[in-house]
């Protein structure tokens, strides 16, 4: 196993500083799932095409399958597991639920993180802007309409809360 090396990585994961051992070949996706047991991060393609593994890395939306675990030393990573507060779901989560914006649910964590990144950058997007932003996230069940509606409903709630 000459290609393998063990790495000790320290990063802030959903607000907590975590130190973990990784394989030098681990992607961030693998590290989150296998080393940190954050199984909400989903593998759909492992090559950056589907967005199921989307997380926010230092404020930037990334596909975690396309980032090496070794690259996150000292970084901040946000995953779907960090979205909800202790008492309530995030407005995006609540709107996805109420708007039937998921069927099988496997793409949902990625859509939620992508949508969160979108609304951080553009709190009042048009439907067209939502569709373009979410073009990196594949959903095969819904045809996207209810997802777009849920993101807009959440955006409205979040604007009202400000």
């Amino acid at each position, binding site marked *: *196993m000459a*290609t*393998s090396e063990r790495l000790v990585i320290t990063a802030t994961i959903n607000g907590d500083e975590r130190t973990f051992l990784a*394989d030098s*070949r681990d992607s961030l996706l*693998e590290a989150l*799932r*296998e080393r940190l*047991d*954050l*199984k*909400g*991060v*989903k*593998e*759909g*393609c*492992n*090559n950056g*095409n*589907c967005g*199921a593994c989307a997380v926010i890395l230092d404020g930037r939306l990334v596909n975690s399958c396309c980032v090496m675990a070794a690259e996150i030393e000292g970084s901040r990573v946000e*995953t*779907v*597991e960090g*979205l909800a507060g202790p008492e309530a*779901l995030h407005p995006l*989560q609540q709107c*996805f*639920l*109420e*708007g*039937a914006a*998921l*069927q*099988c*649910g*496997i*793409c*949902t*964590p990625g859509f939620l993180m992508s949508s969160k990144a979108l609304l951080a950058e553009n709190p009042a997007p048009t439907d*067209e802007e*939502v*569709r*373009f932003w*979410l*073009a*990196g*996230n*594949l*959903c*095969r*069940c*819904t*045809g*996207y*309409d*209810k*997802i*777009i509606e849920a993101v807009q409903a959440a955006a409205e709630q979040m604007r009202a809360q400000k």
Partner: protein
Amino acid sequence: MVATPQKPAYKVIGTRPVRPDGVDKVTGRAAYGADVVLEGMLFGSVLRSPHAHARIKRIDTSKALALPGVKAIITNADFPAQESGTLDLGEGSANPKWLVDNVLAGDKVLYHGHAVAAVAAVDWHTAEEALGLIDVEYELLPFVINVREAMLDAAPILHHDLRTNVRARNVDTPKDRETNVAMHMRVEKGDLAAGFAEADIVIEREFTTSQFHQGYIEPQNGTAHWNHDGQITVWTSTQGAFSVRDQVATLLNQPVARIKVVPMEIGGGFGGKIPVYLEPVAALLSKKTGHPLKMWMSREAVFQATGPTSATWNRVKIGAKRDGTLVAADVSLCFAAGAYPGSAVGAGVLCALAPYAIPNQRIDGFDVVTNTPKTAAYRAPGAPAAEYAVEATVDEIARALDMDPLDLRLKNAPEEGDTNSSGAPWPRIGAKAVITAIKESAHYNSEIQGDNVGRGIALGFWFNGGMESSSSVAVNPDGSVSLILGSTDIGGTRASLAMQLAEALGVPYEAIKPQVVDTDSIGYTAVTGGSRTTFAGGWVAYDLGQEIRKRLTERAARIWGVDISTVTYHDDAMITGTDKDGKEQRFTFEEICRRLPSTGGHIAVSAMSRRNTAGPAYAGHIADVKVDRETGKVTVLRYTAVQDVGTAIHPSYVEGQIQGGAAQGIGMALQEEYWYDDQGHLRNGSFLDYRMPVANDLQPIEVILVEVPNPGHPFGVRGVGEVPIVPPQAAIRNALRDAIGVNFYHTPVTPTRILDELLPRA
């Protein structure tokens, strides 16, 4: 049979509650197949064929086994030998011999990506590394990808023992000739020659469709533990836990009593997650290593080796009178089954002409093996390709007769009592109601304007399924009701079945606590597929609801000391009567539940249902498209899906099924297809190159729900999931004809194919 001619005033049905599994799915807690973690778990990976067709001469695993961390390697030879036979999968069937050879190749690999050997190792990276150290010697064989070429006498033969199974009368097929045509079936009624003689116009056209993949976002997976006591547990994402149990039992030659399948949450299936791929391999590796073992597929492997649809080659000949009456139809469907027989051509045959009442017809279907992955069910399996060909031809007839395409369809639409292609009478169906709803829709009555803009319509039909479902219900003293399901929940099953039980009992939706359990914990339940689950599971929920109503009524009668006949269970779950002293009494549902433990005990009941009264589904779609003549790009400007859904239990999920199905159909119409090179290699096995619609490819899909209740269901339920994938290919193709005056005869109509027609030829 329960007739529901008018929609009753339902309290729960028709509302849009949050699904019981919803919070877990938006917080990342829902456990899918790949999320299973077991103590001491190993990881497995599969070596796949680099060739389309080759004999395996030798497999040398010694170098791979010497890699530190590698625990075991298996090949086809490690499986028990299988005899040919028939194994029911729930939606289709399989020959165990072919199934095991597909799971790990036998003496030959039959397609690019065919599994050859499987490795167990301490982690995934090590397993992957070991694959590169397995040395396989192949003898290359000629291959055939195209269905039409595979049918030729001179075609390379995939299975030398295969003979055509003829399910047609008066067909002259040599019985002892090697062939790739596994089956020829024919359905006919009326007098075809007389029908065509009656026709004023006859149009005959030929169509081909590419191979499409279901495209679920979650790759196949399988985790297994073969315990030292011989008990085997399998955790997997599947549409049918019992189907997996039966397949694994057969392939491992173990009694079903030894196998428990735990269905994990499933990340999409669309028919593709019914056959087993990894589960039996994981089980065998677990036996060999003494550890539980998890496997999952790469996306490339999903494309290369799991059930896509058939590529097809179809011919349609239809005769019509000048007034638009369709009098005769002759249809031939040739479906590539992939490496082993068993395409969905049979369903295609029975669906092809179902949107029309045509008195004289003949439909032939051919199941053909090719050096491509074994096909699996995909949403209304067989119907999209068959009905696309018919709907395109009917459109050309309307044009030739200068008739409105919708009027032509309305004139020939079947209704209750008309016979279907096999001669059986239709039950109550919504074909005319759907066409009428299209006619009245805002979309159809809107103007389309501009150059290179056009509108098309097409109909779709799917049978919907019945089959077996089982459930158990326990009534709790706090008035809550637990509902145990055998059906895996692929997109709202827990909610739609809980709603039907709530309706049957007259209690709020929130009182029902549904959960999906493993195969040791509930009676046999067929796959979640065939648009059967809301129908069949709803029947069980209804039956259980009636039984609980009866038992609670009995209990009230006992408490009041009177005969049960004097006690009434009302639809709002209030129980009323007069006690033995003549005093009027009443229990709310909660009140009687609270009394259960002290008045004879709790109530729990189980039931299995197998009804053959599924109500067929009709759909009609309207597509407006715009063609960019410079790039060949097609933009769908507006899209409306109209569908007879029987009764919409949870309208949001019904709409979601229709929007999702239509989106998949639009993908088939315009952009998705398998690409093989001249070596028979699949060249686009990724989501980047197999281009499924993304959010900005689509405009909102408007949905119009038509509710013609199914008289064969207590709540009028028809299935809804499958038929929406049927009309899009023809609706868009017909819209393209309207937009640019070109009839296309192949799907998908990619920009390249548009430009081939629009650019001046050299």
